[in-house]
């Protein structure tokens, strides 16, 4: 890392080719927020169709090409494309890059007292793979075959015969490459670049969450990369890795040698995708721990329990994948094994959640804006996690599989759970990024409106799921058994529209505060971790003085100390 790459006078180079982890982290954050907004807008279009099947989409209907929406009514293929892209964008271009690429990049080196990431240029490469992969993914909407339309899970043979999938696969390979480079970088940084005295047992929980996440990415993504290459071969070189013999598609015999197995893809996909869902969760949990400890003004309860549970989740995440496949036709005896592992993996989650709750006890809770977001994470993750249990239970999953119940289950974890926590992270670290605070009143409005809307969107889905509403349905009214619950689709959609409006104060607040927010000092939250021991925003190289760590991460309210917090780099006599 050389000085000149930062002092280049052209802003474009200064921002897009900087190897400074802070610049890359912010790039990741803003890019990921942008993709989140894209994914949300795709979903708004879908929500129109779900609420009012077959009626023309307002505004957009006229703009969209007749191939996608004749007379303003979307076609089933376009619906499927929107769904697949919504899932893909939200998971691989939204939440993960925000949690890992954004917060991880910016905060992790600061929290361990490092000057930068271990491989700054690799870091930049990782961002560029992400950006280009993401843009390629988005641009598939305007490419000849259109966007992928086989769900984010891309099950073959459908994914092999459907148009649009090739671009999806290429983009995925780029995104996977980006994540792998990132994961190596994060791990080396956290193991090798810690400041003097920063023992593993003194790492903030945020860092631990990032470490476990990086391991998951490192070991779970390569199988998907291999699987994607095989699917690409099936599409381009007409191999039959996932195609059995003798397929007849719409009355035409499919010319392929056959001999492959459709279920093979599902195993490989879920081997990645289950660990991936914990990748969506762990960074958010890391953020929640930081904010909780800071705003209760006491050490997080059960540091060892939380860290141990995270590691346990990381390991167990590799042996539960087939709970997505209970009724896929996989051996029914195998299901019993995955039933047991799935139930076991819920235990560490309960331990983490309980520790978070017990952290409140005895605290002096400040209801700051970031704290509201972190607190909301707890019950919302609780609902999402608890509803995972009837899915993990083989018997009840027979009925609930592929219904809206599942949509409700994971959105509760990922939207009012992870996404809210990540937004809380934005409010929390914003003063570090820009030396200014985001507006508190707007922040609280953003919080309450978002929380209410998110519940309004996703809670009805449990009822619909129990009534049997199938997911990925272009026309939910087509099924008799989901006609009675159709009004709930309208409720969800109205709240989705309101949720969109609720983001306007956030976006305004974000961009306005960069220049005009209230100025803050280096440590506005009176926090203990090292990220607050450097100037805001930190200069290149981060710390202005050598850093030495003397104790654990959350020394709040020690008895007999003059302040109610002791920074990690402050030596105190016991």
């Amino acid at each position, binding site marked *: *890392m050389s*000085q000149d790459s930062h002092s280049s006078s052209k802003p474009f180079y200064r921002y897009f080719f900087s190897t400074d982890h802070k610049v890359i982290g912010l790039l990741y954050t803003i890019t990921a927020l942008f993709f989140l907004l894209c994914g949300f807008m795709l979903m708004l279009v879908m929500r129109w169709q779900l609420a009012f099947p077959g009626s023309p989409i307002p505004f957009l209907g006229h703009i969209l090409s007749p191939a996608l929406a004749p007379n303003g009514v979307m076609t089933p293929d376009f619906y499927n494309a929107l769904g697949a892209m919504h899932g893909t964008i939200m998971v691989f271009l939204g939440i993960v890059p925000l949690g890992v690429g954004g917060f991880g990049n910016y905060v992790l080196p600061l929290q361990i*007292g*490092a*000057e930068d990431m*271990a*491989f700054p240029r690799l870091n930049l490469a990782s961002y560029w793979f992400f950006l280009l992969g993401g843009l390629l993914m988005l641009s598939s909407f305007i490419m000849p075959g259109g966007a992928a339309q086989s769900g984010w899970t891309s099950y073959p043979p459908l994914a092999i015969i459907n148009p649009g999938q090739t671009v999806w696969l290429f983009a995925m390979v780029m995104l996977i490459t980006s994540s*792998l480079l990132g*994961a*190596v*970088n994060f*791990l*080396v940084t956290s*193991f*090798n*670049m*810690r*400041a*003097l005295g*920063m*023992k*593993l047992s003194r790492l903030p929980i945020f860092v631990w969450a990032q470490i476990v996440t990086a391991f998951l990415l*490192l*070991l*779970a*993504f*390569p*199988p998907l*990369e*291999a*699987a994607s*290459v*095989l699917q690409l*071969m099936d599409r381009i*070189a*007409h*191999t*039959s*890795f996932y195609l059995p013999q003798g397929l007849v598609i719409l009355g035409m015999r499919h010319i*392929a*040698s*056959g*001999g*492959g*197995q459709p279920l*093979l893809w599902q195993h*490989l996909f879920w081997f990645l995708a289950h660990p991936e869902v914990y990748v969506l969760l762990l960074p958010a949990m890391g953020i929640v721990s930081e904010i909780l400890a800071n705003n209760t003004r006491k050490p997080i309860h059960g540091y060892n329990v939380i860290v141990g549970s995270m590691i346990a989740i990381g390991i167990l995440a590799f042996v539960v994948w087939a709970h997505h496949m209970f009724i896929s036709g996989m051996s029914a005896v195998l299901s019993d094994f995955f039933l047991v592992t799935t139930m076991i993996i819920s235990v560490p989650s309960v331990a983490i959640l309980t520790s978070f709750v017990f952290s409140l006890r005895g605290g002096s809770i400040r209801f700051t804006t970031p704290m509201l977001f972190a607190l909301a994470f707890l019950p919302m993750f609780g609902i999402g996690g608890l509803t995972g249990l009837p899915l993990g239970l083989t018997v009840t999953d027979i009925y609930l599989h592929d219904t809206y119940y599942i949509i409700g289950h994971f959105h509760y974890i990922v939207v009012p759970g992870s996404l809210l926590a990540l937004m809380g992270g934005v409010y929390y670290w914003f003063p570090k990024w820009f030396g200014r605070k985001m507006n508190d009143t707007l922040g609280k409005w953003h919080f309450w409106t978002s929380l209410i809307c998110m519940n309004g969107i996703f809670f009805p889905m449990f009822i619909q799921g129990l009534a049997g509403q199938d997911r990925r349905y272009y026309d939910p009214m087509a099924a008799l058994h989901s006609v009675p619950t159709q009004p709930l689709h309208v409720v969800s959609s109205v709240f989705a529209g309101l949720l969109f409006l609720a983001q306007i104060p956030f976006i305004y607040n974000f961009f306005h505060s960069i220049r005009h927010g209230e100025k803050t000092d280096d440590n506005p939250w009176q926090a203990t971790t090292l990220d607050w021991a450097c100037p805001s925003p930190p200069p290149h*190289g*981060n*710390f*202005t*003085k*050598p*850093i030495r760590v003397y104790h654990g991460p959350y020394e709040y309210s020690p008895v007999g100390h003059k302040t109610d917090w002791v920074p990690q780099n402050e030596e105190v006599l016991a």
Partner: protein
Amino acid sequence: MSSSTATLVHQPGESTGVTNAKLGIWLFLASEIMLFSTLFTTYIVLRLGAASWPRGWDVLNVPLGMLNTFVLITSSVTMVMAYAKAHDRDLKGFQRYISLTIFLAFVFLIVKGFEWDAHFRHNEFPSTSIFHAVYFTLTGLHGLHVIGGIIVNSGLLYLSRTDFDHPLFVGRVEGAGLYWHFVDIVWIFLFPALYLL
């Protein structure tokens, strides 16, 4: 980097005791192992599920495969020599051995190219059968890794003219060596799996 922060940077890893580059390479190889394990698993699953599976030696050219195995093993030896020379600060020797490694990698690819070409001329393509699909995909991905090795080693050869005395240079050669051995090992699994079983 400014001197005031220099104390923070090159502080040795407290718990690992290895350099960043080496740790990075090991982690990268861990992910590569997952990649190739997946491919091997796929091979096993497809083979177990297949109605019939040809004997490798009936379909593939075993002598050429044998030759290539020998070529790659030799190149691993020359890679070790290159590392030894770099370690002993012998620029000429380093350049000789790394060039030899690159050369052998090219030999491997050319032999592989002949094999593939012969298949194509017999009208055997990845789409011909599931066996061919596995064969072409696995050897193709391995070939891409060989090309990657050629690029890395050529980069080192080029850098050695100016950067041979850089304190991190030996470490880089070591990293490239680890990677190259890995590529070699993958082939040592691939060869019997495809040609001999």
